[in-house]
């Protein structure tokens, strides 16, 4: 055996012409190079975020509101406290709206709708929602709640726009997880005499919970980074607000308005805010991945 292996390998190599071997090597090299190329932007973004963002982080950066003052030193332009609170409040409200509805629709699709024409129609519309550009969600809410009611921007309107964006993500991911719950579990519970609603609430949902938490966290992370739906629904504000009925600031909108400023200090605040936002989103992603790994399904 030992004596045979090298010779057969040699023979195999011999059969491939140099031109084909060269082409193979070039193609594999190109594929490797493209993969490395794909990783470069991430490294550059992380590097620039850290180098620019960390230098504008300071205790006062997180504890003061933006002043709207853009002509003087960095100390007078203020921090991003209102933006952080605004993002947390609106994303929390959006989750409270989108998660029960999204999970409810997913439960209906898996437990009741199954493959009926109506369920297929609902799936199609959820897919449509997935593809709608985020700024169009903002305009939907604008038309209905601002033109429609004649009132002004408000935090809860921004949260509604975000919840529209989260809804398809929550529904689709919950549906995929619910389908993985073994049918034998449902049947055992039904055989023991449990009614359908108890099967759903005591067996199906608890089994699917970890997997669904992952989908929800990814949806939350997506909503937290959105600017476009908030521009014309919650607008921007300077002061920290805990009133979801009033104007509300948020991290993405704060960054967007700071990007266009000619003042270096304001642009630096945008970098600091961007780093804050990315850290928040990456933490959510990390938690989601850890929970996904723990999950017994999938």
């Amino acid at each position: 055996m030992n004596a045979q292996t090298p010779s057969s390998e040699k023979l195999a190599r011999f059969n491939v012409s140099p031109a084909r071997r060269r082409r193979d090597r070039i193609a594999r090299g190109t594929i490797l190079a493209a993969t490395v190329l794909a990783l470069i932007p991430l490294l550059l973004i992380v590097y620039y975020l850290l180098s620019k963002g960390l230098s504008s982080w300071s205790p006062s950066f997180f504890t003061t509101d933006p002043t709207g003052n853009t002509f003087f030193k960095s100390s007078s332009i203020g921090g991003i406290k209102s933006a952080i609170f605004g993002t947390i409040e609106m994303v929390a409200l959006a989750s409270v709206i989108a998660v029960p509805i999204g999970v409810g629709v997913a439960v209906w699709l898996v437990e009741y709708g199954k493959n009926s024409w109506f369920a297929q129609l609902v799936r199609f519309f959820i897919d449509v929602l997935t593809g709608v550009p985020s700024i169009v969600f903002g305009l939907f809410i604008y038309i209905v709640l601002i033109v429609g009611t004649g009132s002004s921007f408000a935090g809860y309107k921004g949260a509604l726009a975000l919840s529209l964006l989260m809804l398809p993500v929550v529904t689709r991911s919950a549906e995929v997880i619910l389908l993985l719950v073994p049918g034998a579990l449902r049947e055992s519970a039904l055989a023991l005499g449990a009614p359908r609603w108890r099967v759903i609430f005591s067996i199906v949902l608890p089994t699917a919970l970890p997997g669904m938490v992952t989908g929800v966290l990814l949806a939350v992370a997506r909503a937290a980074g959105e600017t476009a739906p908030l521009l014309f629904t919650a607008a921007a504000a300077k002061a920290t607000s805990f009133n979801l009925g009033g104007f509300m600031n948020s991290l993405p909108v704060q960054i967007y308005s700071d990007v266009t400023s000619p003042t270096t200090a304001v642009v630096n605040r945008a970098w600091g805010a961007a780093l804050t936002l990315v850290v928040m989103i990456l933490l959510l992603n990390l938690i989601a991945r850890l929970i996904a790994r723990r999950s017994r399904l999938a």
Partner: protein
Amino acid sequence: MEAASIPGGGERSILGRSPLARFPDRALKYGLTVLAGLILALIVYFFFRLVGEAKPAFAKFGVLGFTFDNDWNVNAEQFGALPLVVGTLITSGLALLMGVPVAVATAVYVTELSPRRVRGPITVLIELLAAVPSVVYGLWGIFFLAPKLQPAEQWVADRLSFVPFIGGGIATIPNYFVTGLVLAIMILPIVSALSREVMATVPLDHKEAALGLGATRWEMIRIAVLPYCRSGIVGGAMLGLGRAIGETIAVTILIGDAPQLGGHLFGQGYSLAASIANEFGEAQGLHRSALFAAALVLFVLTLLVNGVARTFVLRAAKPGSSKPIEGAAQAADAADAAAGA
């Protein structure tokens, strides 16, 4: 058992429940059905309200006139969205051109060529690209990428001055090319994830048959893997296209917001989504209606592209068992979920 122990169960069958006990079941079933129906109603309602708001602009310029006239002049109240449509198509086309080959290459590398150890880390790193919010891409693009690329763009424009659209002009910092490049980075995770899912479904037999006939690794990929995955890759690319067309904030920051038909690749332009984000705040009357009309055009465009994409993804899943369908759809959803776009 339970039913039998209740005194006065009377005529009910032993397995039946009293109407009261059946109530929560009925309530849950009909409640959830109504919920699902409400979502449909809501989407249809939104669509008709959007059409209603866009009507004045369409009435004044005509649907085709609005979409294909090259004249977007806010002061003169002239709204022909061709510059915006073309800007959207140029930048998302560039994104496909640059993003898809790289995304497919990463998928090939991860599924066919990479050592097992680096497979996980590369996948996670590419998926992290989807976690970066779009406004951060805009910030990074305008303050880092665009200034760094400008000299190179000018060099290319000078050298290739005889090529229409590419050469001749002056490279500005916000331009079509940088926008397309950043969009390419943004669609990379979803196209890569879908391609990877589809490539994982290539039957081992096909690959082994190719290798057994003496194919090199690359020939095996070319003969066995890529043709098998073609519709899946096209579907993934179309989903990426839909994402690129609808992308708003990064494009608004990077494209330069010049409402005319950009003459060349390294010049400023405009897009449908960017015009809405940029002008809606101050828009009144006909202008506002024109922006709603632009949103409608954008909505229909993404709907078409996504529809085509879903068809391709589903077709890609057909040759195998029913499992790939779920796999592909799941990958699309995961990428959707992770995308900060």
